[in-house]
């Protein structure tokens, strides 16, 4: 089908990202995942390509423009590689540069953003705590004033990019209970009282560095407070919307990869004297996967168009994230099934994607929370 929204620039960008992924990531996806790490050079290369600068001024190293379709296309293309861990560690900065660009002082913006957007340094967003991630209004990490700065105490966990990042956008309570008591801070690795430990036994995203962060009276200068005290969580809600667009696009890429690999296998593999693709049960699986993928893609494009028009369709972004993760989960499961025993073996994309669909259903706002949010956004 044709994409009514495509332009020469979007196509050129997509093809550039495709070429980059095919040469620089795909050949190493499995090796890096098994090793639980990948070379930092890839961050720089992805930065040079322009993957981290959407919606951020050129003065701070950004692109100086935004385009939801390009965000979507790069999300799809990267996820199609089936290297979810690599994408997570590359992309996690995209959920923390927005708050810096919007809320930090001019001095911090100029010092920090170009480093992160170019891929020279890493950045992470630290919201989730051991006591919970769904209900951020109850976060326990506290920041108290100390002379010219603040002292942060508490713990953050499941922080993507958390072992290698140089800067962290951290949510901490500075006031009373509820959302209104929470402020944001920029914490630099190496600050006194800041420590990090790796989370090593994840089900997927092995190549990604995930961390628990420990703040023991960690000192942050007053200038590192982002935005006004107590108003910050509201200010980063928009950021979560972009994260949902990215995650749903990633789910689309994962689902497409599952479908393509399953079709490839079904054409080659024979049972009962004919290729799998000639068995009606398998053909129906292909139809079921394909129609869900088409629907997700069409939905995402309508949302991208709306975002480019300057609106923020928060309810749809919440819903599309659920449609994305359920589609990816369905396609991964069906594709695994079509591969039979071969699907159960490590070293190929479908098996990895099958393990990684769950983080898409939980991270960045779980399916349950997204449904609740969507209905709330619908005014109900």
């Amino acid at each position, binding site marked *: 089908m044709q994409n009514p929204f495509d332009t020469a620039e979007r196509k*050129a960008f997509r093809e*550039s990202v495709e070429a980059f992924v095919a040469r620089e990531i795909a050949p190493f996806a499995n090796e890096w995942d098994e090793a639980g790490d990948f070379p930092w050079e890839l961050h720089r290369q992805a930065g040079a390509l322009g993957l981290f600068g959407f919606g951020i001024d050129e003065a701070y190293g950004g692109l100086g423009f935004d385009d939801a379709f390009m965000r979507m296309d790069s999300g799809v293309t990267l996820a199609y590689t089936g290297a979810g861990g690599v994408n997570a560690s590359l992309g996690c900065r995209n959920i923390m540069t927005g708050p810096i660009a919007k809320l930090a002082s001019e001095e911090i913006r100029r010092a920090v953003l170009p480093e992160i957007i170019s891929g020279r340094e890493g950045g992470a967003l630290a919201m989730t705590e051991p006591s919970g991630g769904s209900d951020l209004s109850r976060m326990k990490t506290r920041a108290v004033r100390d002379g010219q700065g603040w002292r942060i105490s508490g713990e953050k966990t499941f922080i993507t990019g958390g072992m290698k990042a140089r800067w962290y956008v951290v949510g901490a309570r500075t006031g009373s209970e509820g959302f209104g008591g929470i402020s944001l801070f920029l914490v630099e690795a190496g600050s006194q009282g800041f420590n990090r430990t790796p989370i090593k036994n994840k089900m997927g995203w092995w190549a990604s560095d995930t961390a628990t962060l420990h703040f023991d009276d960690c000192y942050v200068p007053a200038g590192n407070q982002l935005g006004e005290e107590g108003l910050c969580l509201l200010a980063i809600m928009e950021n979560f919307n972009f994260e949902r667009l990215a995650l749903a696009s990633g789910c689309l890429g994962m689902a497409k990869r599952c479908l393509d690999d399953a079709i490839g296998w079904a054409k080659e593999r024979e049972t009962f004297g004919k290729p799998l693709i000639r068995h009606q049960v398998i053909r129906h699986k292909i139809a079921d996967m394909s129609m869900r993928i088409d629907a997700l893609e069409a939905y995402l494009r309508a949302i991208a168009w709306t975002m480019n028009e300057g609106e923020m369709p928060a309810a749809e972004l919440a819903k599309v994230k659920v449609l994305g993760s359920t589609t990816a989960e369905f396609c991964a499961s069906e594709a695994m099934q079509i591969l039979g025993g071969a699907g159960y073996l490590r070293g190929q994309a479908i098996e990895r994607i099958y393990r990684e669909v769950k983080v898409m259903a939980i991270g960045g706002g779980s399916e349950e929370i997204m449904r609740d949010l969507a209905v709330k956004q619908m005014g109900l």
Partner: protein
Amino acid sequence: MKILVPVKRVVDYNVKVRVKPDQTGVDLANVKMSMNPFCEIAVEEAIRMKEKGLAEEIVVVSIGPAGAQETIRTALAMGADRGIHVTTDAIVEPLAVAKILAKIAGEESPELIILGKQAIDDDANATGQMLGALLGWPQGTFASKVEKDGDTLKVTREIDGGLQTVSFGLPAIVTTDLRLNEPRYASLPNIMKAKRKPIDAKAPEDYGVDLTPRLEVLKVAEPPKRQGGVKVETVAELVSKLKNEAGVL
């Protein structure tokens, strides 16, 4: 120095082409098209020379259908300065391309023309050499290294027996081999900048070149399917088979 880089739009190297049932050619409907990989290497080399301060301007030319404009834009997004698109839907053979390029060289007066050694569609490996003959310029073909030393160019060529180095004065022609460089990816900021770089629209008639093919395609067929091999037990058996059955020893 001004560098002219011709670029060709071809079927993407990842596409498994299929022969049309009537055997007149390969099916190009809905097939992904890209810049010929050897042309990409030529663009990259020109950009590197410009980055080293050895060149001031890079002009890319493509002779082909409307879609070839996209290929020119890709070169502009990599870092070339402007484009010339000679639009035609006709089949263009190396000689016709070389004749048009010779005319463009006359108008543009580049000191260096860098071309891919061949295009991956027809694999003709002829345009650069023909252009050299038409212009009477020296050429360094199958380049794996290009060095500029004052007014001379030193080109390391990949030849059957190894490497050969040739030196010659400018203006000159270089054709690229695979190991010359690794082309960069067009970055998003540069893709957006390329939008504003000029592309001159031209037609073959502007150069007075007759595109009529000199070659006739009789038939295009799939290569024969690979046959299953045999396993041999010993080296002696292998040698015997190569000698007696394959007849290659």
